[in-house]
């Protein structure tokens, strides 16, 4: 299966994976914050290496990212991305410090952000695993606050071994009132991509 020969059915299935995964992650967040959280229709993107950071505000935009490696029957990675102002709002909700607008974070706050990311990614992955009835184990999360281009080069490098493009399933969520938004980027490697498709009955 080549990346360029993907059919509409493939795209539809990937969108649905993004939809279900992000839906579960968002409901976990919503329970955590006791707030309504909405999400957009997920997008499946086939991007050139140079354009991977376009959707998070350009390559030099600083973003916060939580990374979890996926292994087992499916290999790849999932990234949770958010910008500093959104992370600040999340931290304020968790710690009950609504007036803080600092864009730098203490150790404790960073740890909270990482845990929120971890919980959301875990919900995403467990719903994904039960959707395709495969067992997935996830690595411990790691966090990086850096330029978007460099962070998204991590999945790009993984795809670089096999292709000239990167395949992302991108899901965006946001709260209604507080301007919190974030992205999930699920990146299965190519053999896993085939397994996912056949598990869902598509060649």
């Amino acid at each position, binding site marked *: 299966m080549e990346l360029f020969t993907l059919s509409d059915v493939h795209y539809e299935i990937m969108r649905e994976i993004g939809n279900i995964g992000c839906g579960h992650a968002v409901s976990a967040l919503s329970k955590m914050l006791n707030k309504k959280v909405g999400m957009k229709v997920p997008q499946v993107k086939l991007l050139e290496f140079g354009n991977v950071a376009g959707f998070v505000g350009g390559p*030099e935009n600083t973003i916060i990212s939580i990374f979890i490696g996926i292994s087992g029957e499916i290999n790849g990675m999932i990234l949770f991305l958010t910008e500093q102002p959104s992370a600040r709002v999340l931290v304020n909700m968790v710690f009950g410090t609504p007036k803080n607008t600092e864009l730098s974070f203490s150790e404790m706050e960073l740890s909270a952000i990482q845990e929120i990311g971890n919980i959301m990614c875990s919900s995403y992955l467990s719903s994904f695993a039960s959707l395709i009835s495969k067992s997935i184990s996830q690595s*411990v999360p790691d966090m990086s606050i850096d330029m978007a281009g460099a962070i998204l080069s991590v999945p790009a490098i993984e795809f670089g*071994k096999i292709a000239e493009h990167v395949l992302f399933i991108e899901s965006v969520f946001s709260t209604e009132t507080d301007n919190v938004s974030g992205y999930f980027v699920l990146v299965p490697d190519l053999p896993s991509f085939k397994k996912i498709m056949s598990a869902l009955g598509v060649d």
Partner: protein
Amino acid sequence: MPKKHRLKRVFGAEERQHQTELLYNLTYAQSRRIGAVTVKITVEIADFKVTKDSDSVITTLNLGSCVGIALYDPNRKIAGLAHIMLPDSTNALDNSNPAKFADSALALMLQEMTKLGANKAALQAKIAGGAQMFFSPAGPASRIGQRNADTTSRLLRLYGIPILGQDVGLNYARTVELYSKDGSVVIKTAGRADKAI
């Protein structure tokens, strides 16, 4: 305001071209003659650029696990900068873009620089990047940065090109600027001071 007075203002490199052209309506060639233009060249990920223009700056953004390889011939002032993603083209499933890999990018860039008149024996190298953006005990993202940096150093040694400076490893992204007037390299990062190597 008299023109003389305006001339005394010190402009930044980028502003200079714009301001000079604005004030005097100079053609590109004229502004080059008075040394007012610094040509900016950008290298995308999995790409490289070479120049024999002695007043340009070649930039590449966001080296995470990727490595930036700056080559410079100090006698002819010929410069080249590559942004490689992976160490080895021979084991890759898709090696249609040679600039993606350290081995093939370096070979091709050397060829292009020699075409411009660079002397291979005089070349000097500086490298940056090769970070580990995320700690991952096993699996896809593990240690690719270090492998990129190690392979690049090894290849440069094989070519007999001395590495005059490097800023590799750790866990943060770097932006690299290579100045073709003297081969100096400036490393920029988010939240850290600029660093010259």
